């Protein structure tokens, strides 16, 4: 039962092979059996059983959607009414959200059953899940390795069958990189496709929520429920949401794939490169054509991102001041003491580092040299992608230069950690949709293939991923010990 896809489970539920409550119990049991992964910050057992009961009632009446009764878990960045929403930080360890994020609301309405809230890098800042106040998440494929980040809890949980599917968010690769490292399918939608309301902001112009699932088919179902215009989010785009599942059976005959040469240059692990070449060869078998393209300004993506994202985060995180909610230091002497100690004691190192970088970049006298310059680079990178995507239908390349690295390996070398996001960050700067699709293994650890499409081409991306998953079984591999 724990290996069935969303579509299969929907059938099982309707055929009464299993009830929603039983399904929730199976997953809650598995979560209890695998505390070593540290995927969950909160398990909402009571809540899940209530929702499952309601789902069973709906299903009995012949109502509900494909997601009705399906156990899901949310990255702890999404506000969930009445449930702790920590964002992986000591700052919000005591924060019970008084409202639901739009994404949560939509999934509740679709009848999905929330198992709990998933671990993540603190305020989504990190690529290894090691910056969480709740401790690191482990990679189910290799417990000594990181699961990636920031949506590491989501990726590990889906991979280890501790949830059927999960929500994640991606600011610089935070859905795709952990999906790649944990061997699951992750999709970062076009900026504006999924509402950001109730998703605790890290870098507002880059943050985007998306599905993390075992297959492209599941991702289509989950994205269907998550996507759409929200009048509470001015940056969400008022454009119809196509039927993603209905678009999954298009032939790839004649589809053109661009391989940006900068994605395959220096720094890319040979094992990863070989895995990706094999994946591209499979696409050629499916009738796709392949061509080299270029994203000439790719190398500028990291410096530009590490100006823009920290600048935005320095303001976004100002509301955590110990005054209205969240952590407050003991016995503040005065206002300044309240601010400095509350923030000093509750934010972790990486969060402080980014707030400081962003504050610096926005300061008088530096603004033009950093923030404005970074915005110009952002435009150049968007233009590079625009040009490449004028030549081909989609781009393919690595998600990360290596497979999951060892825990502790990079945590004290932030620059090295930042550089490992080179292939994902540029996509956020351009606002394009992109996926990570399991494409094989290198050294026993999963390798993800990144597929980047044009704005609002999620349907095309999902189909391209799905076609590949029809002729390969990488996405069906289960980490040892989690069968």
């Amino acid at each position, binding site marked *: 039962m724990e290996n069935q896809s969303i579509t299969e489970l929907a059938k099982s539920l309707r055929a009464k092979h299993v009830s929603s409550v039983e399904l929730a119990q199976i997953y809650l049991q598995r979560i209890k059996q695998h505390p070593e992964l540290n995927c969950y910050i909160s398990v909402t057992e009571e809540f899940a059983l209530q929702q499952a009961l309601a789902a069973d009632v709906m299903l009995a009446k012949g109502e509900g959607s494909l997601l009705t009764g399906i156990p899901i878990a949310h990255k702890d960045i999404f*506000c969930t009414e009445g449930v702790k929403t920590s964002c992986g930080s000591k700052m919000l360890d005591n924060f019970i959200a008084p409202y639901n994020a739009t994404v949560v609301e939509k999934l509740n309405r679709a009848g999905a059953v929330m198992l709990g809230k998933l671990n993540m890098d603190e305020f989504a800042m990190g690529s290894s899940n090691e910056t969480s106040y709740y401790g690191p998440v482990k990679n189910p494929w290799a417990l000594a390795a990181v699961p990636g980040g920031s949506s590491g809890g989501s990726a590990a949980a889906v991979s280890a069958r501790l949830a059927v599917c999960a929500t994640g968010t991606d600011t610089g690769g935070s859905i795709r990189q952990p999906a790649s490292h944990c061997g699951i399918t992750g999709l970062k939608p076009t900026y504006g496709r999924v509402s950001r309301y109730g998703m605790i*902001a890290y870098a507002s112009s880059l943050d985007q929520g998306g599905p993390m699932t075992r297959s492209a088919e599941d991702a289509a179902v989950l994205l269907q429920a998550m996507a759409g215009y929200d009048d*509470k989010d001015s940056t969400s785009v008022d454009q119809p949401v196509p039927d993603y599942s209905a678009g999954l059976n298009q032939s790839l005959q004649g589809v053109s794939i661009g391989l940006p040469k900068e994605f395959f240059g220096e720094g890319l692990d040979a094992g990863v490169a070989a895995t990706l070449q094999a994946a591209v060869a499979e696409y050629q078998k499916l009738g796709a054509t392949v061509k080299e393209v270029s994203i000439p300004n790719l190398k500028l993506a990291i410096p530009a991102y590490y100006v823009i994202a920290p600048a*935005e985060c320095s*303001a976004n995180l*100002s509301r955590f001041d110990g005054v*209205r909610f*969240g952590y407050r230091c003991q016995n503040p002497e005065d206002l300044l003491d309240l601010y400095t100690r509350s923030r000093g004691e509750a934010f972790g190192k990486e969060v402080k580092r980014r707030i400081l970088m962003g504050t610096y970049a926005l300061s008088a006298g530096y603004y033009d040299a950093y923030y404005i310059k970074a915005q110009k680079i952002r435009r150049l990178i968007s233009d590079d992608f625009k040009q490449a995507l004028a030549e081909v239908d989609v781009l393919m390349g690595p998600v990360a230069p290596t497979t999951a690295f060892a825990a502790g390996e990079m945590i004290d070398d932030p620059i090295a950690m930042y550089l490992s996001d080179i292939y994902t960050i540029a996509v956020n700067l351009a606002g394009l949709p992109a996926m990570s699709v399991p494409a094989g293994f290198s050294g026993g650890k999963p390798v993800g293939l990144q597929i980047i499409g044009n704005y609002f081409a999620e349907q095309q991306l999902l189909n391209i991923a799905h076609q590949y998953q029809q002729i390969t079984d990488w996405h069906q591999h289960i980490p040892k010990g989690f069968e």
Partner: protein
Amino acid sequence: MEWETVIGLEIHTQLATQSKIFSGAATAYGAEPNTQACAVDLGLPGVLPVLNADAVHMAVKFGLAIEAQIAPYSIFARKNYFYPDLPKGYQISQMELPIVGLGHLDIEVDGVTKRIGITRAHLEEDAGKSLHEDFHGLSGIDLNRAGTPLLEIVSQPDMRSAKEAVAYMRKLHELVRYLGICDGNMQEGSFRCDANVSVRPKGQAEFGTRAEIKNINSFKFVEKAINFEVERQIDLIESGGKVVQETRLYDANKDETRSMRSKEEANDYRYFPDPDLLPVFIDEAYKAQVKATMPELPEAKKQRFKAQYGLDEENTAILTSSRPLADYYEALVKASGCEAKLCANWVTGDLLGALNKAGLDITESPVDYQRLGGLLVRIADDTISGKIGKQVFEYLWQGSATADDIIAEKGLKQVTDTGAIEAIIDQIIAANPEQVEQYRSGKDKVFGFFVGQVMKEMQGKASPGEVNKMLKDKLK
């Protein structure tokens, strides 16, 4: 040395929208603390701002009224600073690319018209309020005001005296109320002023160092604060000192300004475009749409009142000082069909006098234009005299009866029966032979005595014209 004062004003007008600028919470003043603050106003994690279209409409309306350039593309920015009543740790405002660009407003001081430039007007959200009393050493925070829309109107440094500054402020106050974009209530903080003041030797081209005086909330205080500040700066320079650029606070109780913070202590607000909000695009069609909702502006109304009603400068100025008052007057003229001057005299005289005494606004007048009109009709058709009219007005003010009811009930109708008047005149003449003798020997003054006696006897209910005429005949 002769000194010249240079003043620029920054005026924060609270826009009269129903809901806040970036949330759906109500903006009404005076509610219980923190009952009008929703998740967005509280700055809860995850919330996002959504721009209120009415606020944009009002800003554009203002821009059109001052003949300003309306930005085809404007953006919101975050102004970063920490304060307990600023929930997000930044204020959403506009820095580069404000919605309203260069415009102007004409003021009149001592009969001379002067054009004051308006550099810009931008939209922003208000902060909440910190309450430092009543909390036993702690501070309370009321976020009802957080997110209230403000239009900050920044003038050019074009004013040369406190008097000009006050004239500009009054003119602006009148304009925003006319436009219906601000209630203008200064006690409630709907219209607040910061003044940038500097002095320079007369004839010098460059400006002196300026001080910014914060939050001056009445016309009187603006004048006093500027005058104090000008003297302080002149004294300082003349005694060999130097003005430093700083923010000062006006203390109305002591009538002085004092330093709040110097330039060195000033915050670096680290403005940057707010990524949560889209740019605002305004095209010609939208401007035309706003223009269609534009009321007649004060200047145009003044010209029209003079021409249409033949009013003098003083009555025109009073009657057009607010839109509701002008509307009241026009409705009165129309409904009563009375002479425009009669209407004007009654509104500016008795009605406004009574309202001022009672501390009421024209919109709160116990006597509406229909009932006042009913009174004026009876004066015009000589049913009662103007003097009796004042008595009737008193009754109108106190109750809800019409003038006709009051006249009938109190028996105030003028006596038109000339026989009755004649009888009384004869009686008075007979009773006062001495005065009759005096009058006939040329003492015209005594005539007033006879009029008074007759009116007294008639309890004021005789037409004064009629009495005069008949008395003159009889006393010949």
